[in-house]
């Protein structure tokens, strides 16, 4: 054996040891995040909006994430009925041994996963699902998205105060967040002198129904406003187009809703039909604050000038920021679910949507809501104009402790 060969073997051995050392060090700092999103099925178009936000956060905030490394393990929650999401949560916890769970676009998915999250004792960051009582279902749930009570309650108040509406019809997708939207709007609207004259369950979240018969019924009832909640996505476009096609505005009915009916990524495709719509939501891509300007600019730079973040992107962005905070606050021991949750109680963050905070009592987000109107800008594109801002809005379902949010006896 020549001297040269021995040197090579020795060098290889040294490298192997070094590599091994590096691996064990990386393992100590590697954090596995299990991401549960619908990559197929009706929500499939929302998942990329959230994935992009998570990627973008990691790219732009690499310095803040150090010395940790985030590994995202994705699982498909398929149809919005909770069945696949629950299995996803189980597999991520038991097989992939993830440190944190995150995602959940649809409420049924988060509701079905709650017992698994509780049993797994890992932090679960809800990045979209908006049914109010979900955070009551597991002490490990923290929500960075929104509740339907936040937007619909404010919309109910403003329908009476700002739009001076006396009568309203509510059309809602018949599943938990839709019922929340109905109850919140009705509660606020009727406490401000309005009257909800009809509530129409308009199909489920699985498929986009033909809204013509539902809206024909509304047209026959001649309310001042039609308040609609449908999950953002295809259903939103169908609502706006059908409303316009039936000529309901000319018949004296104003379409209002949560921001779900005018998600930023679909707004341009809605065209003239969307102009004038009034919604309440916590985010729109036109919001004028430094964080949002930087966020939208970085987004367009990364994903092209025609790509736009929407509120689901911001829920994911804030969610991954929350995970990063918990990671540093627990000094890497984020797999201790109780400690991770505790570190997020009262956490404040400057989000693209404005300042947000996690309510230490409910683990739910506290944030601004904006009364928006769709307007056509001088650039020929559609924009959201903020008519009024409501600061630090809490989830009224839990504040009032009513309906499904009432304490269990």
């Amino acid at each position, binding site marked *: 054996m020549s001297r040269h060969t021995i040197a090579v073997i020795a060098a290889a051995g040294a490298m192997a040891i070094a590599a091994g050392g590096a691996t064990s060090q990386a393992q100590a700092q590697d954090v596995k995040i299990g991401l549960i999103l619908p990559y197929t099925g009706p929500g499939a178009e929302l998942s990329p909006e959230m994935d992009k936000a998570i990627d973008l956060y990691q790219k732009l905030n690499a310095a803040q994430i150090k010395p940790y490394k985030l590994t995202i393990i994705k699982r498909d929650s398929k149809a919005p009925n909770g069945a696949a999401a629950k299995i996803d949560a189980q597999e991520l916890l038991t097989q992939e041994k993830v440190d944190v769970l995150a995602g959940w676009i649809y409420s049924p998915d988060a509701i079905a996963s709650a017992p698994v999250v509780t049993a797994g004792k890992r932090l679960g960051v809800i990045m979209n699902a908006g049914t109010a009582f979900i955070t009551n279902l597991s002490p490990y749930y923290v929500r960075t998205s929104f509740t339907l009570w936040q937007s619909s309650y404010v919309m109910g108040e403003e329908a009476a105060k700002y739009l001076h509406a006396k009568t309203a019809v509510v059309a809602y997708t018949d599943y938990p967040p839709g019922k929340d939207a109905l109850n919140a709007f009705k509660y606020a609207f009727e406490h401000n002198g309005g009257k909800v004259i009809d509530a129409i369950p308009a199909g489920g979240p699985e498929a986009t129904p033909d809204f013509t018969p539902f809206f024909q019924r509304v047209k026959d009832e001649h309310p001042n406003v039609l308040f609609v909640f449908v999950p953002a996505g*295809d259903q939103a*476009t*169908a609502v706006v187009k059908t409303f316009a096609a039936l000529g309901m505005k000319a018949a004296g009915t104003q379409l209002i809703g949560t921001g779900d009916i005018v998600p930023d990524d679909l707004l341009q495709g809605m065209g003239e039909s969307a102009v004038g719509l009034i919604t309440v939501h916590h985010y729109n891509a036109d919001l004028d604050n430094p964080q949002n300007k930087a966020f939208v600019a970085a987004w367009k730079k990364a994903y092209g000038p025609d790509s736009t973040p929407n509120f689901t992107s911001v829920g994911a962005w804030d969610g991954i920021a929350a995970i990063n905070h918990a990671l540093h606050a627990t000094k890497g021991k984020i797999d201790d679910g109780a400690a991770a949750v505790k570190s997020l109680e009262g956490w404040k963050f400057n989000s693209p949507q404005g300042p947000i905070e996690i309510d230490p009592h409910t683990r739910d987000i506290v944030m601004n809501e904006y009364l928006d109107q769709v307007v056509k800008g001088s650039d020929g594109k559609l924009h959201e104009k903020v008519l009024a801002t409501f600061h630090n809005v809490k989830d009224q379902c839990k504040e009032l402790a009513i309906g499904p949010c009432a304490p269990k006896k």
Partner: protein
Amino acid sequence: MNAVADIAGIVLGGLAAGTVLFIVSVGLSVTMGLMGFVNLAHGALAMFGGYVIVLSMNRAHFGFGAALALGFVATAALSVVLERMLYRRLYRAGELDQVLFTIGLIFIFIASTIIVVGSETQQLQLPPALSGQFNLGFIQYRAYSIFLIVVGFLIALGIWLTFERSRIGGQIRATVDNRRMAESLGIDVDRLFTITFAFGSGMAGIGGGLGAEFLGLDPQYPLKYLVYFLIAVSVGGLGSVIGVYYASLILGILDFVLTLYLPKGGTIFIYALTILILLARPQGLFGRKGL
């Protein structure tokens, strides 16, 4: 005055929905009546045509008419390929084999569509002339719905005339009534079927595009509406063009009225009614006995 407008709105809305159903289902009725072939993948061809129409408009900036023509030709061409390569092998197979095969075909269509185009719903961009309101004299109504109703009526009339008056129509009727006898009289049933199958599939393709405004257009389309297509065909009667037309319109109006008055699960009555009709008349409302 208001009541008139309300009722007219309901009738027109239901007729428009029924018309879409007719345009998609008519081909299925004729091919099932002609060959006794259970082609559950008919809706997949409608979806294919719909995608061709919508994508050629949105991405290649085709006009509405040109896109519809392209959708018809492309779907008809694809159906001939499928018929020659795959369907033909199963004509003499049992019904269960045919059902399994065509259901499998649906899944292939769904998966291919997700891979090639994506799983999001495709939006039909209507030409400006059709996207507004149309004044009918006594009410204003959605221009596109009225356009659909008129087009559907013309299509039904055209197909009916072809069936009743033309040579090929006579051959089709003869084959539906008695295939063996038709063959012994020298009618080339295989060729006849290919032509009918291509035409029916092309119509389905047009229906997929025209109906995207009401039924939406996404990869799950062929499964979502399969039951509706089958109800229209079985209630109308296999091989009966007029039967499918009436059945589709009745189904459209009933579905519309029930959804309007009983938004939560009102459509269950449609299934109940279908069962009752088929119990009383297994051959369908307009079907001929002995099929």
